[in-house]
């Protein structure tokens, strides 16, 4: 379903992604793990047509994102690291807007919005403004939105960041059940090793823009001679802390947090 070969992205001197290759099979749940700044988000941005690779090849469902961006976009859904809902619209309006942008016919749109909102336990709050939602509710709404246009692939970029264990648990349960019922291929990144181990069939670990290991959780543990995925992860990526440089967007986010009460 996803095929990536020698993918490279350089920003000036910095090699964000440095010759990455992997394959994700149809219907699989694939976890992409790595420390901050390892190149996870850049890889997702390239797969989802937001950023053009410097070199290398990739296909989604057999299509090249660079050559046929609109066809590729119809085939995937994505939940970004940062929320991407419109807080001034209601939950229902957010989903409706998405459905219209993805050309989902009205009848199907109405049915699927209701089905997904009920599944993610948001139906009672459909007419509330999204700005009144908690972090967990916003995440659920975004995931429901990602499924709305029946994509073949769902990208989840750290979807459980900042959620309590209850919400995380429930979220993965829903994602797994939709993965099974609608045969959606799931490509996820997370910092929680237990989640990756529980949800994903296969795992790739990326560091400094390169894939350092891939396989099932058990294979990774065997390879490194460790007894948990977390220990395997640390053995593969070292224990140095990676500090990302704050950019203009981070500064603005901090400013907004300051202004909101």
């Amino acid at each position: 379903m996803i095929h990536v070969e020698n993918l490279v992205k350089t920003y000036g001197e910095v090699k964000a992604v440095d010759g990455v290759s992997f394959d994700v099979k149809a219907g699989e749940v694939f976890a992409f793990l790595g420390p901050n700044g390892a190149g996870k988000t850049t890889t997702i941005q390239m797969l989802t047509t937001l950023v053009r690779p410097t070199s290398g090849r990739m296909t989604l469902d057999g299509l090249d994102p660079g050559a046929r961006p609109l066809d590729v976009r119809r085939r995937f859904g994505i939940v970004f690291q940062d929320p991407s809902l419109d807080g001034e619209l209601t939950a229902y309006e957010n989903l409706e807007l998405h459905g219209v942008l993805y050309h989902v016919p009205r009848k199907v749109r109405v049915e699927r919005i209701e089905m997904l909102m009920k599944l993610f336990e948001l139906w009672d709050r459909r007419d509330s403004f999204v700005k009144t939602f908690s972090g967990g509710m916003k995440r659920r709404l975004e995931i429901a939105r990602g499924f709305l246009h029946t994509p073949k692939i769902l990208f989840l970029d750290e979807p459980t960041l900042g959620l309590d264990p209850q919400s995380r648990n429930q979220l993965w349960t829903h994602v797994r059940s939709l993965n099974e019922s609608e045969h959606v291929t799931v490509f996820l990144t997370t910092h929680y090793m237990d989640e990756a181990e529980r949800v994903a069939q296969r795992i790739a670990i990326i560091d400094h823009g390169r894939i350092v290991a891939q396989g099932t959780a058990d294979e990774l543990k065997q390879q490194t001679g460790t007894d948990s995925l977390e220990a395997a992860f640390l053995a593969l990526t070292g224990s140095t802390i990676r500090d990302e440089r704050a950019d203009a967007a981070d500064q603005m986010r901090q400013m907004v947090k300051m202004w909101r009460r």
Partner: protein
Amino acid sequence: MTAIYILWLREVKRYLRSRPQIIASLAQPLLYLLVLGFGLGPVFQQSGQGSYLQFIAPGVIGMGILFTSIFSGIGLLWDRQFGFLKETLVAPVPRIQIMAGRTLGGATIAMIQGMLVLLVCVIAGFRPQLALIPLALLFMMLTAIVFAGLGTAIGSSLKDMQGFQFIMNFLVMPIFFLSGALFPLANLPAVLAAATRLDPLTYGIDGLRGALIGTSQFAPATDVAVLAVVASGFLALGAWSFSKIQI
């Protein structure tokens, strides 16, 4: 087309739901109208130019349209930093349609804002000639499109809020002050006269003034022509900068 419509609708909904902001944004034009209108009124009257309140009302309507359309473009910066823009950029819709929906939405709310300012001016004592109201609406629409296009171009290229301050002080305020919103364009010093003629808002307000109170510097056809040309230019610029946005 439905993509353009739904994004246009989003802009309009957001505007109509932010009532406190609508009221707040009416305060500034009203302040100019009342304080300058009554404050400078006697001086203006003595120099034989008639009522200053009548004179600046079209100016403050233009001001309302200018600010609203530029701010709607700045909204792009927020959507970009806080994610919603990404949702539209990964949708299977060409970017030009996304830009068109947002920009037309911005122009529409600027137009509504202009009509609200007109209404407030009338309540404050402004007496326009009614026969040419449709022409006045045409000029309001053209002005709104011109600056919504510029707003999109600015919003697409800004990186942070510091840039916003810069734009306000070095672009938006000069556009307002050089437009002849507050003073007649006749008999100006040569440099100022040249500057006013380079300012697109000049033609919007001149046309509006011609339609509403019957005095203008240029022929209405000239105003329409200049605004139409500038609007196409700014829309093209907006579309180009929007297509260059990198997440």
